[in-house]
């Protein structure tokens, strides 16, 4: 039985952790680290992007012998200019956890057995063949990651979409960036931010929408603080549902009720028009007005489908639509005072101020994620504050290569490296570059991530290969999807670097190289592609995720599509991939340029990076003779959308009377499988907790550190209360960080998603609390 095996592994791990703690701290150690023997004491430094978040800081990895021994911020990288955060400074320690997976394992008679990696790869190839024969090509799936390197995602797409002909390719970026993508596509017709981090030094006002940057994008937050300190008249507004470190550092903190950011954004537009702060020249030349369907549902049922139907509207119709969003009406919906709404509108509306909006998961993990992205673009479009230095609606990413690998390579069910599978031209281009017969690529998308795990549960998918991600912590409504993965006749392959709850459900575990143990590229939030060399040798039998896929592809008979040698494959893959983007809107830098520099921004045209897209002064893809050209859309215009306020999928009621909000802390990155193995980070935040408002805690009779049971309609978790700690939720809300595998808060969350982007909302569901 799989379940028994799983619980055994768990208890064994717990035992060894306790033993380890005893042997590490026999007393006060002389120094904070074990000394390397026979080392010269000299360090050589090599550049890489940081392994963790989507900021994409450049780091210098310090090498002594064949070990990484230190980190510095890369002073040549324009992102961070030599500064890191506590995760980046200690990132190399994540390579050296004692329980690194160094050998392949295969389940034999219910037990995981170590085998040579070649044998495990044989098993995977055989199982793919067998499953396709028995259940058809759409019964096998690949689930990847925004932490995949660009070559990882590229070969995965080539094998599954091209060679095997199934569109069952998804990545965890669906859980973090899908609404950002659909926001860009619906407003601009082309993905990724028009601006860049240099906007930070140019802006006079920053509005952060549901975004605790002090913890989640700390280096960019420090850039903002430095700019405020230098220029003095810079204003930072924290617009959020919970009080955080970012609120404390901001000039003003404005709290809104969950999901009502939609109403507030519309109210800001109402005020901009009422006060005639509209930049008419810009609006007339460069925008058009549209509406779509309303009451669009929440996707909590299997086989949910939705297709929007855009319709053109006039400015007058848009203005009439906004009548429902006067500041006074929205005050009643959102809890934000009419005065604060007018203040926000006046900041955006002031023609003398350059305004940058930042957002990340708060707007993306949102049942109306696409809409709220559209609405914030509306504000910037009405005022013409876009695509110029300092005027920037800026969608940040959470993973180092959510942009590079998932959005640019297109490792989502409907995407190809260029275009979508539904378009014949895009399929033909891919088939030509990949050397495949016409008709190899299926024109129909299959499952988005939530539906893919539902299909695994139902039995429509029988084989799933999971790389560089930990869905058995991160899937919402987790109980269903874990039970599904554990059903008989489901075959799960997991490539990872440490044991996780996801390797616990695996039938084959492949030991992967991590980060600088392989060559690769990431792509960060500001369209910057960042190359890194293989700097540290990987331990044991570890193999890069790219090479694992190549090995399996060759076993399936696709040697022709995967011909490269082990010493050259990354460069060859890059140059092949680059052909997909061979146009001035998306041109990527050549391999040699990437190797030489600390990141290069695309579009890279005639040897030059493009800082601000759609602006004719900066972007060579723009039509000449106009100041802006929103070339993503056929009409050359950016779209302003009438999108209404609609409530969350599940709001607190009599029985389940609290909002549950989830997220991260600065010390831990995602599910903690790496950062918990870094001593400093684990020592700082050893376990997850539930943040309560002090008055709610007092009503419940709970003091700091006492246990609280959090119960939803789907599951429950019992954990320690944190009162007046890192963050303070308003009355009626609790917040739980999700990094801790001992407290799986996603057993409590709801698998509702934005019907357009299919990205789940991890920030809103209803729970009740009990003192435990």
């Amino acid at each position: 039985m799989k379940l028994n095996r799983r619980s055994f592994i768990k208890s064994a791990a717990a035992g060894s952790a306790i033993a380890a703690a005893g042997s590490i701290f026999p007393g006060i150690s002389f120094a904070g680290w074990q000394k390397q023997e026979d080392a010269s004491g000299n360090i050589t430094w090599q550049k890489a992007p940081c392994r963790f978040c989507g900021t994409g800081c450049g780091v210098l990895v310090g090498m002594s012998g064949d070990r990484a021994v230190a980190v510095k911020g890369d002073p040549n990288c324009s992102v961070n200019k030599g500064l890191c955060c506590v995760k980046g400074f200690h990132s190399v320690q994540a390579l050296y956890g004692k329980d690194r997976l160094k050998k392949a394992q295969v389940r034999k008679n219910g037990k995981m057995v170590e085998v040579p990696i070649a044998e495990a790869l044989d098993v995977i190839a055989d199982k793919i063949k067998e499953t396709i024969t028995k259940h058809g090509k759409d019964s096998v799936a690949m689930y990847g990651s925004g932490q995949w390197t660009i070559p990882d995602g590229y070969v995965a797409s080539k094998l599954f979409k091209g060679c095997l002909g199934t569109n069952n390719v998804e990545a965890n970026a669906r859980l973090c960036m899908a609404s950002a993508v659909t926001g860009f596509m619906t407003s601009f017709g082309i993905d990724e931010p028009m601006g860049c981090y240099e906007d930070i030094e140019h802006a006079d006002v920053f509005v952060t929408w549901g975004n605790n940057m002090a913890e989640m994008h700390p280096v960019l937050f420090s850039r903002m603080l430095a700019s405020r300190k230098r220029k003095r008249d810079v204003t930072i507004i924290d617009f959020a549902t919970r009080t955080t470190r970012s609120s404390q550092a901001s000039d003003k903190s404005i709290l809104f009720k969950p999901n009502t950011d939609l109403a507030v954004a519309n109210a800001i537009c109402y005020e901009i028009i009422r006060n005639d702060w509209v930049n008419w020249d810009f609006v007339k030349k460069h925008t058009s007005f549209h509406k779509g369907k309303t009451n669009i549902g929440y996707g909590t049922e299997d086989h949910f489908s939705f297709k929007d139907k855009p319709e053109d509207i006039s400015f007058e119709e848009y203005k009439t639509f906004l009548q429902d969003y006067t500041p006074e009406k929205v005050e009643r919906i959102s809890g934000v005072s009419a005065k604060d709404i007018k203040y926000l509108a006046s900041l955006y509306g002031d023609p003398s101020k350059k305004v940058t909006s930042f957002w990340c998961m708060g707007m993306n993990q949102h049942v109306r994620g696409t809409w709220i992205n559209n609405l914030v673009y509306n504000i910037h479009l009405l005022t013409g504050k876009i695509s110029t230095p300092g005027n920037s609606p800026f969608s940040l990413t959470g993973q180092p290569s959510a942009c590079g690998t998932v959005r640019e390579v297109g490792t989502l069910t409907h995407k190809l490296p260029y275009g979508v599978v539904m378009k014949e031209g895009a399929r033909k281009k891919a088939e030509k570059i990949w050397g495949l017969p016409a008709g190899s690529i299926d024109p129909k998308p299959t499952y988005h991530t939530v539906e893919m795990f539902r299909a695994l549960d139902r039995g429509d998918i029988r084989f799933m290969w999971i790389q560089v991600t930990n869905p058995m912590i991160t899937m919402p409504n987790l109980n269903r999807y874990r039970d599904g993965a554990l059903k008989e006749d489901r075959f799960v392959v997991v490539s990872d670097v440490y044991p996780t709850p996801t390797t616990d459900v695996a039938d084959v575990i492949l030991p992967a190289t991590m980060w600088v143990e392989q060559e690769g590229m990431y792509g960060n939030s500001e369209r910057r592609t960042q190359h890194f060399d293989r700097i540290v040798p990987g331990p044991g039998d570890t193999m890069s995720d790219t090479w694992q896929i190549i090995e399996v592809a060759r076993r399936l008979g696709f040697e022709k599509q995967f011909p490269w040698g082990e010493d050259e494959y990354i460069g060859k893959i890059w140059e092949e991939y680059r052909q997909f983007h061979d146009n001035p809107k998306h041109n990527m830098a050549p391999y040699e340029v990437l190797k030489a520099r600390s990141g290069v921004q695309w579009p890279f045209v005639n040897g030059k990076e493009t800082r601000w897209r759609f602006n004719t002064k900066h972007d060579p893809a723009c039509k000449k003779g106009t100041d802006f050209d929103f070339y993503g859309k056929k009409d050359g215009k950016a779209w302003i959308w009438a999108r209404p306020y609609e409530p969350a999928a599940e709001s607190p009621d009599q029985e389940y009377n609290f909002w549950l909000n989830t997220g991260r802390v600065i010390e831990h990155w995602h599910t903690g499988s790496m950062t918990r193995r870094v001593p400093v980070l684990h020592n700082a935040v050893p376990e997850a907790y539930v943040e309560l408002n002090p008055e709610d805690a007092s009503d419940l009779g709970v003091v700091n550190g006492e246990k609280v049971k959090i119960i939803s309609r789907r599951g429950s978790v019992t954990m320690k209360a944190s009162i007046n700690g890192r963050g303070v939720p308003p009355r009626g809300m609790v917040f739980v960080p999700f990094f801790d595998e001992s407290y799986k808060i996603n057993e409590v969350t709801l698998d509702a998603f934005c019907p357009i982007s299919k990205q789940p909302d991890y920030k809103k569901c209803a729970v009740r609390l009990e003192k435990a």
Partner: protein
Amino acid sequence: MKEADKILGKVVTGFAAICLTGALLTLPADAAPDIPQGFDSDGEKIFNRFDETPLAAMTGTDGKRTLDVYYELRQYPGSPPRVPHDVPLSFSGDTMKCLSCHGRGGYDVNQNAYAPVTPHPEYESCAQCHVPRRTEELFVETEWQSIEPPRLGRSEMGGSPPPIPHSLQIREDCIACHTGPAAVAEIRVEHGSRGNCRQCHVPMIATEPRKEFTRNN
């Protein structure tokens, strides 16, 4: 008064007695046009700090901070040290609280010690890099190793000024760490009255990325 505030109150009172006068160190805003900020490893910082620090604050040591204590807080030479003292849980984002002690230094009654001075007060989001310890247990044992800390006193000749054995990045301000009562005893200088440190002490090249020298023929 909340418990956290009480602790803080004591710390601040302790400081008031001995705290140095004047505002926090700020970098001058006006560089000559077209001269990039921070050239020469932010060499300007040393002169500013020297100007603003009274001689008295550059002398004396309580001898409590030693290199052992210093490295115990670090994971490799040059890593950001963890916070070794209690920090109230709610002590999250108000950086001026950190800088009220670590900006210019001074004596803290609660710890009966002098506060070390940060070499980079321009970075205000302190908890971005410096985190306290809530447990001493590890999640999983680690196989982490790093190099020995640099040896001291590596003068080329007996008595000649020793080179700088660490990277200057984010640690450009010599005076902050090498002078004053909180300076680590082994690396405290006895000649704080001389303000141009890099006149005699030069970075040791092996600790920086470098190109081999070749002659142009």
